[in-house]
């Protein structure tokens, strides 16, 4: 069961990132916090700090010794610290989901094994298939004049692309998406989170056994053959890594595509501009990532320290709110405005430091291709009248429904 959320009376001393108002519109809250108390605190669930300034977020991300990735979840599991027995999924994944849940040295070598799978070169090889997935989806609703840009489109792309990397059939993509949502999006509902994690674990264990018999050209086969410190990699590490690729690559990218289409549906000037100047796309993609950065990560404080004048004690948690950092006016003039051709943009939507998103090349390609294919076929679209846009929040923020209307293809725009 999901836990009940009490209303927040003071964001500086009692914040709650699952508060429905925060999930749908966190921007004014961050702005107030930056002015009044840039490092907010809460005692809900666990003693947790939340810096909202770019400078503080980047400093913490660059200090993995004091801020460990042993607790990256933004919502601590219910039983944590209470002496309750660990959950089944935790025992099976003795090494967590490296590299994201790991500190050096485990982080260093597991990250190195993953990186080549998401290199610039390899990602170019996935672009053509991604484009055909996207264009097939657009064709399926282009002549209807209405679609849900999140559920019918954004949500459908990343699981299919990750399937290519993992070497699993496209038909399974909806199942993947369901597991990942259970695991991440409903993190406050322990039963659902554990069930999603276990289902993924069982499926990937089966796939790993299959690759032992029938090797393919995919990540699992590659990890089975890898040698580190002159030995093979422990199965539990391989499974943790494979699970991470699934978990990290689906909700995140889908949220970024959905938020970008929501922005274009609700901002006529930006939509017209992007259609008229398609060469802006790569820079516009970075700006949309800045403005709607989907991911917030957690860290565990390992020794008493201080950030932005705020004392933090060993054992406390910190949220790396990359989205709030990206809206800091000290780092980005007119931070709350989307400027499609923003030329100076050191945004941290993909994090910063040693955990920088290993899949960022893939995510950027998917976002650019998804927007390009949509705009090519549906250049003119807007939110359906009276539409309710629902945002999910927590670890990953993005719209779950974006009902839009457009002139059906064949009709004159």
């Amino acid at each position: 069961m999901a836990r009940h959320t009490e209303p927040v009376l003071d964001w500086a001393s009692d914040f709650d990132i699952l508060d429905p108002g925060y999930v749908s519109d966190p921007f004014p809250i961050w702005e107030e916090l930056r002015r009044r108390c840039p490092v907010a605190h809460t005692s809900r669930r666990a003693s947790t700090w939340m810096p909202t300034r770019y400078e503080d977020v980047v400093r913490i991300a660059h200090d993995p010794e004091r801020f460990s990735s042993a607790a990256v979840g933004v919502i601590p599991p219910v039983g944590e610290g209470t002496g309750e027995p660990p959950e089944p999924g935790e025992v099976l994944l003795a090494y967590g989901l490296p590299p994201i849940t790991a500190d050096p040295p485990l982080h260093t070598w597991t990250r190195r094994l993953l990186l080549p799978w998401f290199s610039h070169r390899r990602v170019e090889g996935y672009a053509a298939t991604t484009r055909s997935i996207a264009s097939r989806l657009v064709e399926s609703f282009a002549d209807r004049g209405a679609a849900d840009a999140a559920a019918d489109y954004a949500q459908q792309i990343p699981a299919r692309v990750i399937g290519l990397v993992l070497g699993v059939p496209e038909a399974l993509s909806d199942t993947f998406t369901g597991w990942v949502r259970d695991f991440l999006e409903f993190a406050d509902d322990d039963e659902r989170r554990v069930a999603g994690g276990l289902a993924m674990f069982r499926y990937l264990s089966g796939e790993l056994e299959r690759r032992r018999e029938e090797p393919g050209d995919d990540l699992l086969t590659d990890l089975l053959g890898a040698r580190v410190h002159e030995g093979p990699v422990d199965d539990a590490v391989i499974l943790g890594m494979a699970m991470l690729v699934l978990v990290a690559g689906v909700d995140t990218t889908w949220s970024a595509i959905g938020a970008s289409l929501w922005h274009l549906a609700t901002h006529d000037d930006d939509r017209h501009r992007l259609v008229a100047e398609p060469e802006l796309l790569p820079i516009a993609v970075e700006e949309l990532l800045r403005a709607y950065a989907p991911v917030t990560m957690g860290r565990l404080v390992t020794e008493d320290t201080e950030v932005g004048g705020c004392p933090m004690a060993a054992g406390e948690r910190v949220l790396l709110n990359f989205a709030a950092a990206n809206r800091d006016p000290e780092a980005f003039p007119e931070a709350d405005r989307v400027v499609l051709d923003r030329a100076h943009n050191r945004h941290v939507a993909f994090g910063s430091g040693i955990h920088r998103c290993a899949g960022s090349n893939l995510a950027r390609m998917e976002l650019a291709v998804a927007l390009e294919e949509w705009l090519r076929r549906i250049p003119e679209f807007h939110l359906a009248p009276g539409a309710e846009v629902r945002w999910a929040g927590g670890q990953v923020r993005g719209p779950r429904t974006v009902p839009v209307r457009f002139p059906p293809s064949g009709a004159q725009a």
Partner: protein
Amino acid sequence: MRIRVDEGRCQGHARCFALAPELFSVDDYGLSTALRDGEVPVELEAKARLAIANCPECAVEEVGP
């Protein structure tokens, strides 16, 4: 203009390469290096400045004329 990628800072975001593929190369691990020993042709100086201003790790630097 001459530029350099600080190996200790670069985390492989590849923003530099995306903005100025004429000036950088990235390896399979994302590590970027400046081509031609960092020598920037005059017509590419604007692009080099963009790369400097967009690297999230502040790893691209101007090191000389």
